């Protein structure tokens, strides 16, 4: 569904991503794990067009999307939930969700999707009139995910959804991610919490200083001695 080939990205003179190649198949959950600064977020930013990159080919659902501006990707079904939630703080929860459905034209369709989002996140329904900035961190993460779901994505790219959340909420967010995936949304997950990410993912890639150094089935990576030592801390 998503294919990244030979991606090279520079910050000024610094070569931040080296020859990144990976794929995400329809229906999978794929996770990118690695230390801070390994380039996980940069990869997502490059794919969604927020960061310019020097070389590389990105294909989504058979269409080349190399260097396409970010706003065009949403309509194609590629949606990015950025790190740090980035909800529109001064707009209400409902307005935030409306912004998520910005590219969809049909009102009925929107209403149906909204129902579904509220099923996943009943708390958003309770708070739909509240300004997003007044939500707690966990609720903001839910809103960010709900907002992304409003555009009916085919592929959801999630950046550090667990950051700053209580253990209970982390479990909840991952459970919902799995549910969303079961409903047919492919997921590309960037996570610091490698253990959690690998335990819900089908496959994983390990990044180190801008290079992919390992890939494999999530179960295998969980058992891999190097991965255990370097990223699972066991």
């Amino acid at each position, binding site marked *: 569904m998503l294919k990244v080939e030979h991606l090279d990205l520079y910050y000024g003179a610094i070569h931040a991503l080296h020859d990144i190649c990976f794929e995400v198949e329809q229906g999978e959950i794929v996770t990118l794990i690695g230390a801070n600064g390994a380039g996980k977020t940069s990869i997502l930013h490059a794919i969604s067009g927020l960061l310019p990159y020097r070389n590389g080919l990105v294909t989504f659902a058979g269409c080349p999307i190399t260097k396409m501006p970010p*706003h065009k990707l*949403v309509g194609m079904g590629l949606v990015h939930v*950025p790190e740090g939630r980035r909800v529109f703080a*001064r707009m209400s929860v409902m*307005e935030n969700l409306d*912004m998520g459905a910005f590219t969809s034209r049909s009102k009925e369709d929107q209403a149906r999707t909204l129902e579904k989002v509220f099923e996943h996140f009943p708390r958003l329904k309770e708070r739909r009139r509240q300004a997003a900035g007044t939500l707690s961190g966990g609720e903001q993460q839910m809103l960010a995910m709900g*907002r992304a779901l409003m555009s009916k994505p085919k592929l959801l790219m999630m950046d550090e959804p667990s950051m700053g959340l209580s253990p209970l909420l982390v479990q909840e967010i991952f459970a919902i991610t799995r549910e969303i995936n079961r409903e047919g949304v492919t997921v590309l997950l960037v996570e610091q919490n490698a253990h959690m990410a690998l335990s819900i993912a089908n496959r994983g890639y390990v990044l180190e200083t801008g290079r992919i150094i390992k890939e494999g089935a999530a179960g295998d990576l969980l058992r891999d001695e190097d991965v255990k030592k370097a990223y699972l801390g066991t």
Partner: protein
Amino acid sequence: MLLFLNQLINGLHVGAIYALIALGYTMVYGIVRLINFAHGDILMVGAYTAVVLITMLHLPVLLVIILVLLVCVLFGVLIERVAYKPLRNSPRISSLITAIGVSMLLQNIALLVFTPTPKPYPISLSLPALQIGTLSIGSITVLTILVSAALMIVLQLFVSTTRAGKAMRAVSEDFDAAQLMGINVNNTISLTFAIGCALAGIGSLLYGLAYPSVSPTLGALPGLKAFIAAVLGGIGIIPGAMLGGLIMGLAESLTKAYISSQLSDAVVYGILIVVLLFKPSGLLGRGTREKV
């Protein structure tokens, strides 16, 4: 009493013009956080456009009004694309200086083309004044107040209910997140400048009717005053711009009438300072305390 009422009406008239310009200021500031010093000069561009089209090309007034708006919009959008867009990721003060540069450039080109000698504004309105008892309110005054109020309401509805309006608010909060929602940020910003400059275009018509003399620095002072009005009401807030504009207009005209015409600027700035000290984000502004 009559004098007081007359001054009040005068103040509302001037204030409505300030408000109209302030609306444009506030929209542009709200979305790109830029004090667009060139905004006032769009007023001047609009006024000279009317001069050229009517006194030189003798076009009909209605057509001229439409063309004035188009030219203002064109200038605004062009200025944004050429001078401000490349600096979007630079320190904000760089775009501020660029805005000052653009303002100087527009004024000096006008100086070069039209010379400093003021030209008469070619459009006038000759309708009977509105009579209420002994009080007579000029038709231009009525028109100005009505037009500004109507535009403010339309604008407020536009921003809070339409798709494009919501896109503007989203962009003003977070560029990247807005893009990830599928919003075309560049077009949204251009649209904002277009609307702001169209308002300035309308402002130039009303200003010209009120003060029918066109010079290259025509926009500078009303521009600055309008900006202060926007800050006074709470910058980025549409009703705030209106409120700020009216307060400025009233303060100015009442000071001129009852205290001293030289001190009117000082009073206006004094009001601004007092308001900001007690309400740092303007009269209608919401407090934004940095979250720790």
